[in-house]
């Protein structure tokens, strides 16, 4: 049997030497303690469908994969689609740094002295995010935005001992809400929903006031919300604080180039997704759950996830980095840990650090402005062909429109756009039946004016044409 490139010792010579040293005659002997009923015979194993059975060369595998990848359709410009993750530009420098084996193939930096570069990069992610959010404590990442909200709500229940209710508006991302439900269910935490203002699209403040009470451990607000509408997060924060609940805000971080940061609107915990910052779409992941708290020992002690801290060496006081506050984590605290999370999205966090370092102080604002302008231009052009916004509230780069009155389903329009090589927005009629044939459209720096003009022309043709 021939040696495999990924299994250096699989040559006949080396296997022989190792067997002899161990003092056995065949590899099978190493598995003799497996009860026969629990074993699978080589014949049975080889009969299963696993890859192609035999070992393939790179060039055979590449050919097979190439045929599959060619069946994916790449749109240029990308889909006019957000809904929690957004098509944004991915700088080659970000990809390059993440491709370097020293980071890519490293483990969690358990051995601090040999992993300072990795830890510094993660510390920088935490610190850059801290400035963006105006929060003092950031962890090294959660899986995604949705799970970060869920962990934040669970944390609020731990912090606010005895309070067993959390409040979540209807106009937060429904994909996120499903995850919240999953995480909170085993703990028996009650989730109360808050209505949104049918005209503006923002949270119904009166309804909120009626639902936040002394039983409430945490309140979650997303801004811009799922409809793209910018909430008044400051006002909401005041209401929440008054009732002594933790205030958790979720942000689309690009918008923070223009909008007040969680720390500025009084948030106790800030969550969000780092995906827009150079990570690509990847059909669902990996993304990057942002998780930050303001500086408060009570909050810090209850935080989930890994944190890298700045310290010094024991001797000489040279600057150094280390994993900190591990006493919250599963490998120390086991069932008493704040979460079971260990593997997180470290490489994605480093990617975001590279991205934010590139964008810098002014770049982020300019990016947010561009997104704002493109989306508002599109809204304006949409309205020219009768496609009006569903809500009147101020928005950032995403808005809902309704086909009500056109006598067409969104699906029909969508298919016709696809036929013309354009991928439209996100149908949300099934998520919010009260809105009818509504769809959500997002515009970023990758959707140029000429693209939007072309899109509007096509939509006009489709909506008014017979075909």
């Amino acid at each position: 049997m021939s040696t495999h490139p990924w299994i250096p010792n699989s040559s006949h010579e080396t296997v022989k030497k190792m067997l002899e040293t161990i003092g056995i005659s065949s590899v099978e002997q190493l598995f003799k303690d497996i009860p026969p009923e629990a074993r699978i015979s080589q014949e049975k194993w080889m009969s299963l469908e696993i890859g192609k059975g035999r070992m393939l060369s790179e060039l055979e595998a590449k050919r097979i994969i190439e045929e599959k990848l060619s069946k994916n359709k790449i749109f240029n410009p990308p889909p006019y689609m957000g809904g929690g993750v957004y098509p944004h530009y991915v700088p080659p420098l970000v990809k390059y740094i993440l491709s370097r084996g020293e980071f890519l193939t490293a483990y969690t930096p358990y051995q601090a002295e040999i992993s300072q570069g990795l830890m510094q990069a993660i510390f920088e992610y935490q610190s850059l995010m801290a400035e963006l959010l105006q929060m003092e404590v950031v962890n090294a990442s959660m899986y995604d935005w949705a799970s970060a909200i869920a962990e934040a709500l669970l944390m609020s229940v731990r912090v606010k001992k005895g309070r067993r209710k959390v409040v979540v508006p209807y106009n937060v991302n429904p994909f996120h809400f499903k995850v919240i439900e999953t995480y909170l269910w085993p703990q028996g935490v009650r989730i109360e929903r808050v209505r949104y203002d049918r005209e503006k699209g923002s949270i119904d403040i009166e309804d909120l006031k009626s639902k936040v009470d002394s039983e409430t451990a945490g309140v979650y607000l997303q801004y811009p919300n799922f409809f793209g509408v910018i909430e008044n997060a400051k006002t909401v924060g005041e209401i929440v604080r008054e009732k002594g609940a933790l205030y958790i805000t979720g942000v689309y971080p690009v918008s923070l180039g223009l909008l007040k940061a969680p720390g500025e609107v009084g948030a106790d915990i800030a969550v969000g997704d780092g995906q827009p910052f150079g990570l690509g779409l990847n059909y669902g992941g990996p993304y990057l759950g942002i998780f930050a708290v303001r500086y408060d020992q009570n909050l810090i002690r209850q935080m989930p996830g890994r944190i890298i801290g700045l310290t010094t060496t024991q001797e000489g006081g040279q600057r150094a980095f280390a994993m900190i506050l591990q006493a919250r984590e599963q490998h120390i605290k086991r069932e008493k840990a704040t979460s079971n999370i260990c593997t997180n999205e470290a490489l994605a966090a480093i990617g975001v650090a590279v991205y934010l370092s590139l964008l810098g102080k002014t770049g982020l604002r300019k990016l947010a402005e561009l997104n704002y302008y493109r989306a508002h231009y599109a809204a304006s052009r949409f309205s020219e062909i009768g496609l009006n916004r569903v809500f009147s509230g101020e928005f950032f780069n995403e808005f809902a429109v309704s086909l009500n009155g056109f006598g067409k389903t969104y699906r029909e329009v969508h298919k016709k756009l696809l036929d013309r090589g354009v991928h439209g927005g996100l149908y949300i009629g099934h998520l919010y039946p009260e809105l009818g044939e509504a769809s959500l459209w997002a515009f970023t720096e990758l959707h140029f004016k000429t693209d939007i003009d072309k899109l509007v022309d096509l939509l006009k043709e489709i909506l008014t044409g017979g075909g």
Partner: protein
Amino acid sequence: WSEPLIFELSVKGRRGFLVPEPEKEVKEKVGSIKLSEDMARTTDPDLPELSEVDVMRHFTRLTEMAYGVDNGPVPLGSCTMKYNPRIAWEVASDHRILGLHPLQDEDTVQGLLEMIYEMQKWLANITGMDYCSLHPAAGAHGELAGILLIRKYHELKGQIDKKTEIIVPDSAHGTNPASAAMGGFKVVEIPSNSDGNVDLEALKSVVGESTAGLMITNPSTLGLFEENILEIARIIHSVDGLLYYDGANLNGIMGYARPGDMGFDIAHLNVHKTFGAPHGGGGPGAGPVCIKDRVVDAEKNIRLSDLLPGYYVIYDEKTGKYRLKGPGENSIGFLKAFFGNITPLIWGYTYILMMGNEGLRKVTELAVLNTNYFIKLMENVKGYEIPYGKGRFRKHEVVLSAQPMTEELGVTAEDVAKGLLDAGFYAPTIYFPLIVKEALMTEFTETETIENIEKYAERLKEISRIAYQDPKEPKKWPVNTSVGRIDLIKANHPSTVTPTWRLHLKRVKGEIK
């Protein structure tokens, strides 16, 4: 060698990235930006200002101060730090994956769905389970899914009120009890016996009505195959508990045994361990969860597969297309917003495609051979011992104890680890599993060359020699790394803990105590 923080490199007015101006007509049509005073940000975030050149150099230098499998052996036990093939990187970072929106029309992602469909099948076959959901984003996430499946199972059977306990061996990964707790269960720990197996009597003594399930990894974190696994399964099933397989150590038995054949009901896998996806310094990973499709409620025709989380890819014979199937009413639901972590999954897809049945079995064989060869080299080395299961072959890993050295000289597992760093190796996992004192948990995987295993053993012996000559010497290690030993007290003390530069600056300015 040290590198300033990115903030310290900032120079006013520099830019690392050009953002285009909005087109003139766009700006004209839209006019000025209208935001309420309450919500308009008035001061830019204090991000550093750097040129692209600065950013490139800074992060290039940081990578050069890091260490991964591409640099040399990373024998972290239970982490399965194998080679991460570059071809899989090329595939997984293809723009025809990177550019796909998770809510994009299914017709436009048929190639990807086909790959996921195959992957679901392959993983089921590898584990001997019936269905695998590729939804969870990491091993612990898969564990959480598994625990929630157990919870849902008992809920649907109307017995959740009494099914309050999850049993976990004392040698288990910390995630096991943590996951059980997140699932709302009480954790009951059971001891290992001197063979390294679960103490069956102890198990029997805790199993009962309240037993919701048992979580176990097999081979265990001691690298030992649980010889009584069939009996354990019988015991757990006898009280309608579910048996959960922690897949972290699958690399030790692939092609020789399958959790599905051992009586497990649920299993999670770590694609970033067993199937060659990289660890990325702590993620992203992918932690598929698999199940045996046992009946939950015969009357309502509910099976365990109905409980699986997230999306599942199915093939529609009629249209010849692949489709996403969302969770039904009995599902535990979503654990993250969209599909799973595609990049590591596709990495694993490429790995399995290229390995096939033949290669995966060889992977296990060589991983196990490497472990036992290493054990042979470490026989009778002064200062170390290998507790539990004397004379038994290990599978994917072995746990050495530096306890003799610690007792005799005060030289600890940590000192040994730092001595390895100085020789250009990464260190093993230390102080785990908790049942071994001064543990050095070592896993070479199939990746490590015999030369490196021998050099590694040689270095361990050298460390012992040095320690017995002068026990103070190891306390000075490491000396060849970019920094010396780190002040963890300062790192964690409330008055000095510094998770962000922002906090540091505030503390310096006296804005925070």
